[in-house]
Every structure is written in C-alpha cells, then in structure tokens.
C-alpha cells in the first residue's frame, strides 16, 4: 500500500474539512425549519405531526433563499469581495441536501424496529397482514403506474390537437 505524501494528505484534509463545513453550514436552513415547526406545533395544534409543517416551511425557505443566493453568486453585476462566500453558501446547501437524502434510509431503521412492540398481534393476524402489506402494496403501485401512463397521455392529448390545428391554420394562411 502506497503511503500518501504530505501534500496529498494536506489536500485530502482540506477537501474533507471543506465538505464537512459545507455539510454543517448547508444543513442550517433545514434544521431551522424543524425547530420552527416543533415550536409552532403546540400553538397550531393541527392533527398532523411537526414534520408535516417543517417540509412546506423548507420548500418556502428554499424557494426564497436559493434564487437570491444564485443571483448573488453567479449573476451579481457588482464585483464583491465576499463573492466566494455566496458561492460557498450556494454549494453548501446543495451538498448538505444530497448528504441528508443519502442518509435518510438509515434514520428509518430505529422507527422500523418499533414493529417488535406488536409481535403478538402480528403473529395472530399474520395472514391478513401479509396479504395487505406485500401483494396489496405491489398491486397498488403497479396499477397506479399503469393508470397514470394512460391518463397522462389523455390529459396531454387535447393540447397536442390544439397545437396541430394552430399549425395547419398558420400553414393555410
């Protein structure tokens, strides 16, 4: 095994520290949305968990923040000494979102383990649970895809007909 040189180690350390700092800084908006949702939950008292408030908040925050950051980082007509900071912030949010989505399946594992609490009922009604969970889910997904394929062509068809008739009237004129 080759031992990396000092320069290579310095490069690796620099890249790693940049990735880590980008991940931490970029996750701040998402953490903020969760904190706000959890503090609003007892006030609003909706029949939905705080996560249902956090996701729309994150969408609204990103739709307002990201265009502004992109404009400051890439389309800013005025030269700015802190341009690298806007670049970094813009990339940090993208990097952090990719990392968080990559580890999302891991976060479901402690929740999935909770099915052990209902072992008695799961054993008693195993047949109906198996039928409902496995074949029913697969049939629902496959049927939905097939229906959507048919209905999306039907929904988009009238616009295609309109475009063709507009083209023929233009050609005639």
């Amino acid at each position, binding site marked *: 095994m080759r031992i990396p040189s000092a320069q290579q180690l310095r490069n690796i350390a620099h890249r790693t520290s940049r990735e880590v700092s980008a991940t931490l800084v970029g996750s701040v908006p998402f953490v903020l949305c969760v904190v706000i949702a959890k503090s609003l939950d007892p006030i609003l008292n909706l029949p939905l968990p705080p*996560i249902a408030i956090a996701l729309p908040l994150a969408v609204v925050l990103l739709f307002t923040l990201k265009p502004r950051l992109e404009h400051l980082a890439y389309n800013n007509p005025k030269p700015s000494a802190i341009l690298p900071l806007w670049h970094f912030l813009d990339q940090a949010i993208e990097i952090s979102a990719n990392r968080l989505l990559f580890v*999302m399946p891991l976060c*479901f594992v402690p929740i*999935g383990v909770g099915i052990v609490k209902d072992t008695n009922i799961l054993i008693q009604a195993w047949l109906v649970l198996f039928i409902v*969970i496995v074949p029913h889910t697969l049939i629902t*997904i496959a049927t939905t895809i097939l229906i959507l394929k048919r209905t999306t062509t039907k929904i988009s068809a009238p616009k295609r007909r309109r475009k063709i008739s507009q083209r023929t009237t233009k050609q005639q004129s």
Partner: protein
Amino acid sequence: MTIPPPEIGSIVCIATYTTAFYLYRRCNKPALLNPVFLSVVSLCILLLVGNFDVPTFQHNAKVLLWLLPVCVCALAMPVYRLRQEIVRQAKPLLLSVVGVTLLSCTSVALVGFLLHSTQPQLVSALVPKSITGPVAQEIARAIGADFSLGGAVAISTGICGAVFASLLLKRYAPQHPALGGIAIGAASHGIATAQLFAEKHHIAGTYAGLAMALCALFGSIFVPFLWIALQLLLFG
C-alpha cells in the same frame, strides 16, 4: 438491568445499516438484501433474542430520530431543482394522490373485512397503511384503532415498497420515472422515497416525496370520514 450507554442504539443502527449496505452493493443489489429491510429484520431478531426493551433502544437512538425530520426537509432541494417540471405534472400528481389514497383505503378495508370480519379494530388499523408513519398513527388514533399497530403496518408497507421500488420502476416505468415515483411515494411513503434517493433515482424520488406529503395531507382530512362510511357499509 444495567443502564446502557447513551446513543448505543444509534451506533448499533449505523453499524447494522453500514454492514447491510455493503452486502447489498457487494451482491449486486438484489431486492431482498435491501439495507433498510435487512437492518430492521436483524435488529428485530437481536432485540427479541436478547429480550431488550424496544422503547429504551429507540430512546438511545435519539440522534437518528432527531435527524429524520431534517432529512425530510432536505426533500425541498430536489423539489426546487425540478420545479418547472413539477408544475407540468401537477394534474397527474394530484389525481394519483386522491385516487391511490381512496383506492388503497377502501380495498384494504375490504380485504381485512373478508379475512377478519369479527375484528373491526384490526381492520381499522390497516386503513391508513399507505400514509406516512406518524400521520398514519394519528389517523389510527382518530378512527379508534390501535395507533401502535397502525404505525407498525404503515412502516411495514414502507419497507415492502422500499424493497421492490427499483424493480417496479424498471419493470413498469423505465421511461417515466416521474409516474413511477408518484405511485411509489403515494403507496409506500417515506421509506420507499428514501430508498429511491439512495439508489440515485432523483426524479422518481422527488415525485415520491411530493406524493407522500400530499397523501399525508389528503389522508389526514378525508380518511376519518371514509372510515365512517366503510364502517357503516361493512359492519352495519
């Protein structure tokens, strides 16, 4: 019983998931070796054999449970990237959300009634199975079902969807990842959505996340009323 060190649950979950992920990639990604499915099954066996307390284990995995809503908020990023395409697909998205929720709840109640007609409480716990776990628990509580069983059924549905998500996408919607994502997200919610992102199906994952959120919203409003109607129809 000795007090376990804090966050031992998180460490065990991370170690199990990493091993399962390594095995999944090493064996060329077979559906049944899905990392989430494998991790959950092996941890369940470990907890049952070792007679460990599940709530204590979940309490010691607080870091991962805290990270989950942050990861769900990160779904906003792919929604932002595909915003123009999503506006174009708004009609099929909304139609499928309404259709899948109603179809899934009605058909599952019928299947449950045919197999266990003497137990309306069990049947009611099956109704919100296509809706994401925390919302499914709230709906189960609202309709008088065992909320813990309702959550367990929803989680198992999500794991089943996660196992078969890639296969279904390749088989039925290879040219239409958006439609595949909508169907998978509406039927198998968060865990299947996470699996789509882990396998780099970003377009399908984005639509799955949107469908999951809309199903949760639609389901929390209409499923209790739907259950009242089904209860009158099936159980008199």
